[in-house]
């Protein structure tokens, strides 16, 4: 019996390593989007129950949805991007302050688009999705009537759930199969290309965490920008950094499968960054406004950049990603 179990385990392991893309899909991508769909469905349900901005259940549901998004926000290709879904679900960063303006416009006009899901899908992406909802739930000076804001909150929550559901379904029903079976009918000509797409997603995700999630509020030493932190109103900025790092650690370890040494180095480097984040005790990254706090956020950013370095220097070559002087420059 023991031998049989061992034999089955060996077979499973052999199948797994022969299909690294499938493993990433089954253990990382599909569960991540299923979770996003579930959390946003809970958010929509919570908004139906109570649409008061300060409702703790509603706020908790938004937090859950934002964390679930942070866990897949690096997977911005295929179904995530199709039909502008990611732009509509996660309009961040909002470099020109479009979200407050777009929401104020809807509220001032009591725009009837909120009544119907299909028409609501036509409004500016700046007024849709989880970050628009965060603005409404934490707006210190809410405008308009309670009834309209309630309808708007419900419309955004429903729309977000629909977008996440569409992403999850499209990944599950269509795109996963295309990644599993590279060839003429797939966007990927080979398994290597599919692995490289996942590698690129990891690199982009780490860059977003270092340069946007942390770098944007840091601004410059003379001009820190705490109000540019992701979801600072909800006090979730650091928590989203941690959610993203945890998810990207899982992906990195899977991409390094077969090289135990590299896996160990990657794990240790991610753990150093996660420990640095856990020790930060600065939920909205507001500390960037003080010299001490900024140094600590900068240290965390440095830890994330160390992961990027290791990923580019060691994991990239292992997956056949070469670093051309011009090809990787992008200008």
């Amino acid at each position, binding site marked *: 019996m023991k031998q049989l179990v061992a034999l089955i385990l060996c077979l499973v392991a052999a199948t797994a390593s022969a299909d690294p893309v499938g493993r990433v899909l089954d253990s990382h991508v599909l569960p991540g989007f299923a979770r996003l769909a579930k959390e946003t469905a809970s958010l929509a349900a919570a908004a139906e129950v109570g649409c008061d901005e300060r409702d703790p259940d509603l706020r908790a549901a938004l937090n859950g949805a934002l964390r679930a998004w942070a866990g897949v926000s690096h997977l911005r290709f*295929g179904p995530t*991007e199709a039909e502008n879904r990611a732009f509509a679900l996660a309009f961040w960063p909002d470099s*020109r302050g479009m979200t407050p303006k777009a929401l104020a416009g809807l509220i001032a006009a009591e725009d009837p688009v909120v009544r119907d899901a299909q028409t609501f899908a036509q409004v500016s992406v700046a007024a849709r999705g989880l970050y628009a909802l965060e603005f409404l739930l934490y707006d210190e000076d809410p405008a308009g009537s309670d009834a309209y804001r309630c309808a708007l909150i419900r419309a955004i929550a429903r729309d977000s759930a629909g977008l996440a559901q569409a992403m999850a379904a499209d990944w599950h029903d269509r795109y996963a199969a295309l990644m599993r079976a590279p060839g003429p009918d797939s966007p990927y000509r080979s398994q290597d290309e599919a692995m490289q797409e996942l590698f690129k997603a990891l690199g982009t995700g780490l860059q977003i965490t270092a340069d*946007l999630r942390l770098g944007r509020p840091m601004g410059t030493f003379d001009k820190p920008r705490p109000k540019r932190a992701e979801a600072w109103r909800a006090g979730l900025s650091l928590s989203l950094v941690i959610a993203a790092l945890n998810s990207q650690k899982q992906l990195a370890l899977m991409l390094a499968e077969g090289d135990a040494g590299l896996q160990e180095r990657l794990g240790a480097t991610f753990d150093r960054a996660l420990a640095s984040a856990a020790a930060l005790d600065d939920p909205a990254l507001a500390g960037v406004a003080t010299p001490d706090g900024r140094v600590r956020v900068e240290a965390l950013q440095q830890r994330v950049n160390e992961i990027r370095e290791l990923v580019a220097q060691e994991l990239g070559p292992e997956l056949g990603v070469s670093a*051309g002087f*011009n*090809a990787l420059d*992008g*200008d």
Partner: protein
Amino acid sequence: MTTRRGFLVGLAAAGLTPRASWADAGAPAFLSAGRAADGSYNLYGLDTDGRPLFQLPIPDRGHAAAAHPERAEAVAFARRPGRFALVLNCVSGAEIARLSAPEGRHFYGHGAFDAEGRTLFTTENDYEAGQGRIGLWDASAGYRRIGEFGSGGVGPHDIRLMPDGKSLVVANGGVETHPDTGRVKLNLPVMQPNLSYLSLTGEVLEVAQMPPEHRMNSIRHLDLRADGLVAFAMQWQGETSDLRPVLGLHRRGAPPIAVTGPEAEMRAMSGYGGSVIFYDGGRRVAVSSPRGGLVQLSDVATGRITGEVAITDVCGLGVTGGALVASSGSGVFTRVGGEVASRSAIAWDNHLVAVNGG
């Protein structure tokens, strides 16, 4: 003993620089930024075979350059989001001027002179406003900053003087970036590139946009034909699996058109047009893709792709003696579709800049 270089530098310091011509600089055919084998960055003057005639050190990785129409002066731009550009005397090697982007601005890596070489125009980012600007520098008075105007869009990149000598064409890439966040793209959900035609005093004469499905196709690099036809290279910011052209053509007063061909050939460019150039007397146009490792050739009259040549990490394109040439990040300088003209240990950066006085 006075060395020639020391003597010239002394003259430059005294404001007595002889007006060296491009012939004095060895009559280079092209300028190119590059990285030497020791890791240092330089601006190079190249002969028609891509062999360096001179090299002038620059402090960081370069991008493109602007060659003065008459004097042997080149403006070497830092790679974006750089804050510096060096004006170099290509005979003596002396630094004639150092352009520093004003407070709140950075360069994008490209610039153009007016026909007489009196004014230099540079593409810049007003990054707090997220708006493109064109900086004006007086090339006849030590490259003093003399003004600026709007670029007609966001993220201006390449800029050229139109053949009429009275207007500029600017590739507004549409992508907003901020130096605090490096090269991260901040506005993809709402980006909108365009080609803007501006008078030399900044009036917007015409703005051309591709149809809505190309909203995420960032217009970055340009070439002009003598009759004013503009070729523009684009970089797709959307899904890699989307099929989008990397090359377009535009004539003022008409809508822009995309250069297209069989799906496989379009896909091979990886949605990324690097440099673009007219050749064969303007009958044909080439666009490079470092990501695809290809130079794609097209017929201008039909707007159709006619062929491609594979060159690893290719980007810079030029025309010399009627022949299309290409430079690459692996140091190869080649006649496209023909023989390798030279190999070097220098990694050639994105663009070959033609020296008209050469």
